[in-house]
């Protein structure tokens, strides 16, 4: 039953795995890896929404025949995810910049050590 929707199962696993990494790992870079997995999970979820077997890109061939909507994939989720990827890249950029600044200040990226040095 679950395997009939294996694409959704895959996205849920990625999403939860990302959340788990973010919560349990003490290293800031590992937290960011978890964050990126969460974002990728959501992106894959949108992509699977637009997938249709045996369909093609929505460019109409005007050869006179009637247009068959079922022959074309819905491009909107993919286009949305282009934007979401850009947002993800920007977030990752800002977060890495923050990590660099934290490292320059405290010379460590381990959370426990960080809190000790903050005192």
């Amino acid at each position, binding site marked *: 039953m679950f395997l009939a929707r294996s694409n959704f199962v895959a996205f849920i696993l990625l999403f939860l795995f990302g959340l788990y990494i973010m919560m349990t790992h003490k290293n800031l870079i590992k*937290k960011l890896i978890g964050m990126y997995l*969460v974002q990728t999970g959501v992106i894959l979820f949108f992509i699977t929404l637009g997938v249709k077997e045996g369909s093609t890109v929505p460019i109409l061939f005007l050869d006179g025949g009637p247009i068959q909507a079922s022959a074309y994939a819905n491009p909107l989720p993919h286009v949305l995810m282009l*934007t*979401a990827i850009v*947002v993800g890249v920007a977030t990752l950029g800002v977060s890495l910049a923050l990590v660099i*600044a*934290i490292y320059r200040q405290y010379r460590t990226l381990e959370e426990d050590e960080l809190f000790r040095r903050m005192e």
Partner: protein
Amino acid sequence: MRENLPALQFLIPFFVAVSMPVMGWLRPNWCRPMALFSLLAMVCASLAALLSILDQGPIRYPFGGWIPPVGIEWVQDGLSGVVMVMVSLLALVTLFYASPGVEKTLTAKVVPFYTLVLLLVSGFTGMVLAADLFNLFVFLEVVSLCGYALVAVAGGRALIAAFRYLILGTIGASFYLLGVGYLYAATGTLNMADLAQRLPGLLESKAVLTGLVFIVIGLGIKMALAPLHGWLPDAYAHAHEAICPLIASMMTKVPLYALARIVFWVLGLETLLQTHAFLYYMSWVGTVAILAGAFLALSEQDIRRMFAYSGVSHIGLVVLGLSLGNQTGFAGAIFYLMIDAVMQAALFFVAGVLLYRYGIRQVADLVRYGGRAPWTMATLIITALSMVGIPPTGGFFGKWVIILAALEADHYVAVGAIVLGTLLTLAFFVRFLEKMLLEERQNVQEQSGETPWPMRFGMAVMAVAILLLGIFSDPAISLIQDFASPSGFTK
């Protein structure tokens, strides 16, 4: 002109933000006047838009002429008109307040600072005007990214607060996007008006319900709705004192507005009253948030953390007002949203002056305060009166209307929570003012010079705004009821 106003309000700060690095390179002295001037122009544009809306109804702006639901559109109706005026005015005053502190302590970062602030304000504009769920997500992230960077500007511990904010904020954004995906999968549309037509028949669908829950969780993290407020106290307590008022006054309020927009304009009131459970649970979340925020504020020793938690309590109050399901509650909640934005700005103005001039961070340090700063003192007292809810101030009327709405909805626990929250607020302000006024002064640091006049001006404007919102609360609330309420409320 009228139909271009929504885009214009976005483009003014955005264009100046983008040109700011070039400006900073050619004429560094022009940055501050340019930033302030662009926000002033934005205030004028948003006022013009509001007047035009009151006169002729909502303004719709389809981008590139593509008609929705195919194209993306921005809609400025009564509610977004009012919120836009609030956002642009607060941005102008808080930036004016921030400029001396920033130029003195962040000299090397002035250009990025103004760029980020203007980008933040244009992001708020996008969030307020977007009539499309995905567009809202994009601007939510623009706002959040600027927010992370602005919190981190101060360096030191602020970096770690900003990192934490980024992690939690990204989880929030991912949940929101996931919720949008569920709704899109169920309905095939992202346009809010189009969704509002398609959703009522689909409420049995588990995908729709799950999507809505994810959207509420996502926006709940962004608006620091207790118990999802983990990022907020540290971010506010360690951010640079000049930036704090800007972030504190709007960072949580605009996502709250977005939630109101989705709940009342996308789901629609009829659906909400039929299913009932959604508003019911939301009212309990709001009640818990009021009490949690107030108790946490009382237990804090750090002034800015204390103010931050009082903000968490007020977010709960607004959510409670929205979830009562009657028009009085809606109008009261939107009014309280505005007065709370003003109060948070005023509180962090005061906290900023205390830190900037006297180096005071903790409540216990307030005994060092020399007691000769009439502007700070007057603003603090007026804001405290409003936070507690004493009649001539705006805070009283907001709370009063929400209590009336709770009685109308027979939600007596909520009334009790509001009253208890008020008493707790009173308790922490009594502790605050006692340290400041009654206890003997120790180690008073004589300060040379005066508080820079933009800071005094900012505090005075906020104090006057709190009083004016109190005196003119009746016309303001009836304006919200007549022009900014969703359809379907029984009068």
